[in-house]
């Protein structure tokens, strides 16, 4: 299989690679940033990359119920919304006690 990414067509592999790059960027952001909100941004990017691959599989891969991928994405978005709400609430709660949301400084396991 020839590795020609910018072919004049879009196949499953291409979408998967785009998703992988997006996931990798999200991973990097989530691991390397100090601000809790930035870490959350990385996590959201990773979730988006996963969603993208779900949609790609739904679009390209043979299946009796191809739209199940979409349903999964809807669930992931739901969970992401809940997760974001709780995580940001945690950030605010931590800020209230320590006046910082730098994950490096929130190292004590007690308040």
């Amino acid at each position, binding site marked *: 299989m020839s590795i020609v990414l910018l072919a004049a067509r879009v196949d499953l592999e291409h979408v998967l690679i785009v998703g992988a790059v997006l996931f990798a960027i999200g991973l990097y952001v989530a691991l390397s940033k100090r601000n809790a909100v930035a870490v959350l941004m990385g996590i959201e990017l990773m979730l988006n990359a996963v969603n993208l691959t779900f949609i790609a599989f739904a679009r390209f891969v043979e299946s009796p119920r191809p739209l199940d991928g979409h349903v999964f994405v809807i669930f992931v978005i739901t969970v992401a919304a809940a997760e974001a709400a709780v995580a940001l609430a945690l950030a*605010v709660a931590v*800020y*209230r*006690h320590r*006046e910082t949301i730098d994950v490096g400084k929130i190292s004590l396991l007690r308040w």
Partner: protein
Amino acid sequence: MAIKTEPLVVNIGPQHPSTHGVFRMRVTLDGELITDAEMVIGYLHRSMEKLAEERTWTQNIPFTDRMDYLAAMTGNFAYCITVEKLAGIEVPERAEYLRVIFAELQRIASHAMANGTFVNDCGAWQTPLFYMFREREKILDLFEMTCGARLTLNYMRIGGVAFDIPDEFLPQLQLLVDELPDRFDEYDQLLVDNEILLMRSRDIGIISAEDAMNASLSGPMLRGSGVAWDVRKGDPYGVYDRFDFEIPVGHTGDCFDRFMVRMAEVRQSLSIIKQAMEQLPPGNHCAEVPLNFRPPEGEIYCRIESPKGELGYYLISDGSPFPFRFHVRSPSLINLSALKEMVVGQTVADAIVTLGSIDINVGEVDR
């Protein structure tokens, strides 16, 4: 434990659409809540009290126009009546009645302006303001017909008024007096029956009767708080003891009460004007007073009920043609005494409404 946030210090004014001139309020905000407020004034200070010591008693009348320029007629009235009392000058009957008519017209104009801008501060997009301006315009037309000026009138003189009214004045005034009650009924329908205005102005900026008295508030602010006090009734000056009118008094002392007291006072003023028109005697319009007359040595404090509140003049004469001391008790300034207490703990939007309900005039605050 509340979230530690930076307090936000915001300058409301001096260039702000709702501060009615160059008034500045420095508020400290926690979110939208005001935790501290301080007013900074003096942007329009013209040092009138000092200037007045260099001018003769008659030359000072134009200064009184330029203090509360929205109620110049009552400014004239207060000063002239104080000097007359100091010098013991008798004013002709006709002049007294003309003064009452013009002062009450001026009160209607000033209250129309105050209520229009108040509703504008509540966020109505200038429509009530324009309606109120329409009525004020007609009153200013009457002023122009009589003394040629519309805003800074310089109409009253020590000993009377400058000009007698022209012949077409009374019919025009009659038209106005017949027309205005209907108009104000209409504004009642537009504004008082409006749920949003009620929500915005009721229970906002409350000041109790005791606090209002302690803070020397006067005029519609004092009456809005439930104190039935009006200088026209309590200390009748001029010929006010000959008219039959009532004092509108509010219930809780919130912004809505002050607004409604002004609305009701307009109707009382109209009734006074009607009575004055009926009783208007013929005769001379001004007593003979020399241009550089010298009142006897002495001092006097005399007050009238201006649209904004108790407008008093404390004049000291040392027998020279110039006043020794010319002090104005300006209602706009003293009504601001309780501003901080009224706005702290409210939101910015309410603070603007409260300020609008006080009805200050920066020309009179700073003098």
